């Protein structure tokens, strides 16, 4: 069910009836995608292009004894074989991660996870490159692996990062937030305290398009053109300049059409660097595209948090405090993309949507012999884990107090008048009306009727569950003072040019991986300038053509670049006002704006449209003082705060008591992302995130066996949901604009990914209440659900 029906796209309508700004219009990028005319990385073919393939480690932990490349080099189509030793010579064997660590580009000393990069073959075609991998002889001396994060800090645990001087254990960091003493004091005197270990297992973003790069180094002019599957082209350019020592003006990063990112394409993978080295070494362009197994086994995973949660409340259901300790498995290198100063990102938003007296969290990060990463899957920088924890804990408390979980939430929400609300761990929520969203969700769901139906079914032994979750997201990093990626502040630029005939081009720094930027950003300009979105071209993804900015992840495009685009359009509008004043021989103060034109106050017939003004700005007229020509502008937007979208989700599941199979029957999602630019795109983002949530809740997990072998290396082993596993989504919305954002918009990209897993798991646990189950960890596979029914629920790791 969809509630919003604002202006419908109607191409046949005249200009007046066509949506000029916000509204439900079809995506401008879709004609090329639905016709197969998208241009993805693997579509790039350059003259003389070679192909690279990576030899990967078959074991999780091993000393590298020797590599013999003789036979591979003898292959008639092989051009070069690059090993860690070669990279040591180039000082490229280790590259900085996005989290103040380093990662091996190719193994030099020892293998630290299965699938790690060992050698790179460059050959005339892809088949030869792949075949030649089998001709490389590598000798490994296998070491005992560290697989279980719970044992990472044991005295006898193998030390994974022994190349770091002085390192004797696997601890990456200990970090805490909130007032411990105050929190402990509240817990000590609380009527009710419940605790629960809550595990968010390792999952993978698994974008449809795997990662890849085409490097084209021009030795004559020293320029590197690097086509990459990246969500952050500008950040990559700067990092390549710093790491590879190529002057930044000689680097052009192009991110073509991207087939899904979900955080998987934020970091710089060894393959990208190897493609560059391959191009420099061979003097020819080199393409490297990983296959599905490589993507699943070696690129950035998500989650892997073992959270010990505790919640304190009064007997009548007033939540007082929360505390948690987390053991975070970061894999072999700490490669989380981290915009905050905290090694656990936004995790401290785990106080959720509730007004608490106190809260404290601590996180210990450890190394294990697993693939590095930790940004990904809607890389909300650990909000996903935080929301899951608090929403499970609140449900467990509800059960303990014998209260309805929706009622318990309603009783504890931060009230509308409390915004801006400073939570106990240092975040200032911009705006919210939680109760309204919750009540709407309950109304759409028919909550009372569902509870009645559930009671009747329980009488008959049928297992039906109703799960509630309420989330507050924290997105749009961020004020440059507090948020950076390796020192690069997170403000975004935007440039807008209005051509003489009134058509425009807006250049932005963020890159779309499916979010519909070419439509949304055109609509923002359209709303501000009053010209149709079709007349506005959005340019993105090419560092030579766009202003600097930090990229698309953490739902930051609309909160940051969206603000930049609105402001740059307003700047153009103000410039247009000056020119219109000169054209109409009126003082600018006497002009009034209506969408698309400036007119003389009190005389609407005397006015100039943006197109007329644009022509004049490029014409021969004497321009007013302060206007040097053209109708262009640029801005950099440094957001004053993050934005805090929220939502109320209700999930209904049915469980087969004989087999433990879970069927998601209904899912009601009420989202509030402030001002809604294109409701259709918003719903698309929500649908995708909800589907993702079903995957994580019911089936997704990257598991390892005791030897550190990855058990999720294909789509037969790593399951992602299909249309068959999801119900018809029922979406609704409320609108609580962000008070500080230029157009009041908040991010929506990850809300549903964050909010849906707890709703689904809460529903499953609710269904299993007759068996005395109060908690079970994801994924809720048939076997795990059945085990829970037998009273044997076990954590997955």
């Amino acid at each position: 069910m969809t509630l919003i029906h604002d202006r419908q796209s109607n191409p046949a309508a005249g200009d007046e009836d066509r949506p000029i700004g916000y509204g439900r219009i079809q995506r401008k990028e879709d004609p090329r995608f639905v016709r197969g005319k998208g241009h993805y990385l693997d579509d790039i073919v350059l003259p003389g292009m070679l192909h690279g393939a990576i030899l990967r480690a078959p074991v999780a932990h091993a000393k590298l004894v020797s590599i013999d490349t003789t036979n591979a080099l003898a292959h008639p189509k092989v051009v070069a074989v690059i090993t860690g030793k070669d990279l040591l010579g180039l000082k490229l064997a280790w590259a900085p991660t996005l989290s103040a660590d380093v990662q091996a580009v190719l193994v030099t000393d020892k293998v630290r996870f299965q699938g790690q990069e060992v050698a790179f073959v460059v050959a005339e075609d892809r088949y030869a490159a792949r075949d030649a991998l089998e001709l490389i002889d590598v000798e490994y001396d296998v070491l005992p692996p560290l697989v279980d994060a719970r044992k990472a800090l044991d005295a006898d645990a193998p030390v994974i990062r022994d190349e770091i001087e002085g390192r004797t254990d696997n601890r990456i960091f200990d970090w805490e937030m909130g007032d411990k003493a105050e929190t402990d004091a509240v817990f000590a005197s609380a009527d009710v305290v419940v605790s629960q270990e809550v595990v968010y297992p390792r999952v993978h973003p698994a974008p449809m398009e795997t990662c890849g790069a085409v490097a084209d180094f021009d030795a004559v002019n020293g320029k590197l053109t690097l086509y990459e599957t990246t969500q952050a082209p500008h950040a990559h350019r700067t990092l390549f300049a710093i790491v590879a020592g190529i002057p930044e003006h000689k680097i052009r990063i192009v991110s073509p059409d991207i087939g899904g990112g979900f955080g998987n394409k934020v970091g710089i993978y060894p393959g990208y660097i190897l493609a560059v080295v391959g191009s420099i070494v061979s003097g020819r362009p080199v393409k490297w595209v990983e296959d599905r197994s490589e993507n699943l086994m070696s690129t950035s995973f998500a989650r892997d948090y073992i959270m010990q949660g505790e919640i304190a409340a009064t007997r009548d259901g007033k939540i007082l405090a929360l505390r948690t300790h987390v053991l975070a498995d970061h894999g072999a290198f700490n490669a989380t993309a981290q915009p905050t100063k905290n090694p656990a990102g936004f995790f401290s938003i785990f106080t959720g949507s509730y007004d608490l007296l106190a809260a404290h969290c601590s996180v210990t990060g450890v190394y294990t012999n697993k693939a590095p990463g930790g940004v990904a899957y809607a890389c909300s920088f650990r909000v996903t884990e935080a929301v899951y924890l608090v929403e499970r804990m609140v449900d467990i408390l509800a059960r303990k107090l014998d209260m309805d979980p929706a009622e318990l939430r309603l009783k504890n929400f931060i009230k509308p008048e409390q915004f801006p609300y400073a939570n106990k761990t240092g975040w200032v929520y911009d705006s919210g009306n939680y109760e309204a969203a919750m009540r709407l969700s309950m109304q759409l769901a028919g909550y009372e009727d569902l509870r009645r139906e559930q009671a009747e079914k329980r009488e008959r032994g049928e297992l039906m569950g109703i799960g509630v979750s309420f989330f507050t997201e924290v997105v749009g990093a961020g004020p440059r003072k507090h948020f950076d990626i390796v020192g690069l502040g997170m403000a975004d630029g935007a440039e807008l040019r209005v051509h003489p005939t009134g058509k425009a081009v807006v250049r932005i720094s963020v890159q779309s991986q499916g979010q519909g930027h070419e439509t949304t950003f055109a609509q923002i300009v359209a709303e501000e300038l009053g010209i149709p979105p079709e007349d506005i071209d959005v340019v993105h993804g090419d560092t030579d053509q766009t202003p600097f900015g930090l990229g698309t992840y953490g739902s930051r495009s609309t909160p940051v670049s969206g603000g930049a685009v609105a402001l740059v359009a307003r700047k153009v509008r103000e410039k247009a006002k000056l020119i219109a004043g000169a054209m109409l021989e009126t003082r600018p103060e006497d002009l009034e704006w209506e969408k698309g034109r400036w007119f003389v106050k009190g005389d609407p017939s005397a006015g100039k449209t943006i197109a007329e003004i644009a022509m004049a700005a490029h014409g021969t007229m004497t321009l007013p003082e302060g206007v040097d020509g053209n109708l262009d502008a640029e801005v950099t937007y440094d957001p004053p705060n993050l934005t805090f979208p929220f939502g109320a989700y209700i999930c209904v599941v049915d469980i087969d008591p004989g087999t433990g199979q879970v069927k998601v029957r209904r899912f009601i999602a009420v989202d509030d992302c402030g001002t809604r630019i294109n409701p259709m795109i918003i719903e698309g983002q929500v649908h995708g995130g909800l589907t993702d949530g079903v995957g994580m809740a019911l089936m997704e997990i990257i598991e390892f066996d005791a030897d550190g072998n990855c058990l999720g290396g294909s789509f037969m082993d790593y399951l992602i949901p299909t249309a068959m596993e999801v119900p018809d989504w029922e979406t609704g919305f409320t609108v609580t604009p962000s008070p500080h954002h230029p157009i009041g918009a908040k991010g929506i990209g990850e809300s549903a990914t964050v909010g849906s897993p707890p709703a689904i798991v809460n529903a499953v646990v609710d269904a299993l209440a007759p068996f005395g189950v109060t908690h079970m960890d994801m994924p809720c596979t048939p076997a795990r659900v059945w085990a829970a029914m037998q009273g044997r629920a076990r954590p997955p790791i």
Partner: protein
Amino acid sequence: MQIPAPFDYVRATTVENALELLARYGPESRVVAGGHSLLPMMKLRLSRPEWLIDINDLYELDFILRDGNKLRVGALTRHTTLLESDEVAGLFPIVRDAERVIADPVVRNRGTIGGSLCQADPAEDLSTVCDVLGAEAVIRGPGGERILSMSEFHRGPYETAVGQDELLCEVRFGIRPRSGSAYEKVERRVGDWAVGAAGAAVTLTADGTVDDAAVGLTALGLDHPLAGAAAVLRGRHPDEELFAEAGRLAAEACNPVADQRGPVDYKRHLADELTQRVLRRACARAAQTQEG
């Protein structure tokens, strides 16, 4: 893109031609039917044939034919064809039950019954279906044609009686009156292989007692139909108690292994639960045909 090891490829034009090619290229050659088992293994380089003999032009092997009291199904019959055939569903509802949950439409459009049986993956659904229906396999080779029962055909996981130089050409099912059959599978997701599955075929006597019955399990460590099932069921009136007894028998006889799909105790439970379900449904269907 996952890249297989180098191989050569040839398209067979007739069954005779396919047999010639198999003889010519020898042990390093493999026939490819739908390719949905063979090609994934080649891409992972777990299978490295030097020659692929494509039998997709052998339309003579793509048929469903009623021949007296037999239903004859060509080895190249696609899953989709089996799924959509009302004739098959009417005679052997277990086939449609199973086909609905085999892989996804993309795989079903290409994958064949012959490939499924020859692959003999322990989680192959059609193996169980053919087992409980008491099907026969028609195999051709240099020495001519031979007809094997399913118990002769199946030699264990990934192993069948089909020789390297032979082709499975046809599967034959005996049609019996007053019969019903059913299949049920538990999977983690649509398109996944079975965590566990069970199939049953039942024939009733005129008075409604069980005349004959077969129960088979998929992915639960039972290569052949449940021994003793017929003995337990025969002559009894189908009721919950009987189903429960058969379920217990299945749970005892199965020999599942723990893997990512589930632990042994769960799979054993599935053997019991699913056996009861398919028997219940097969008996109800048999009773219906009796009335109808």
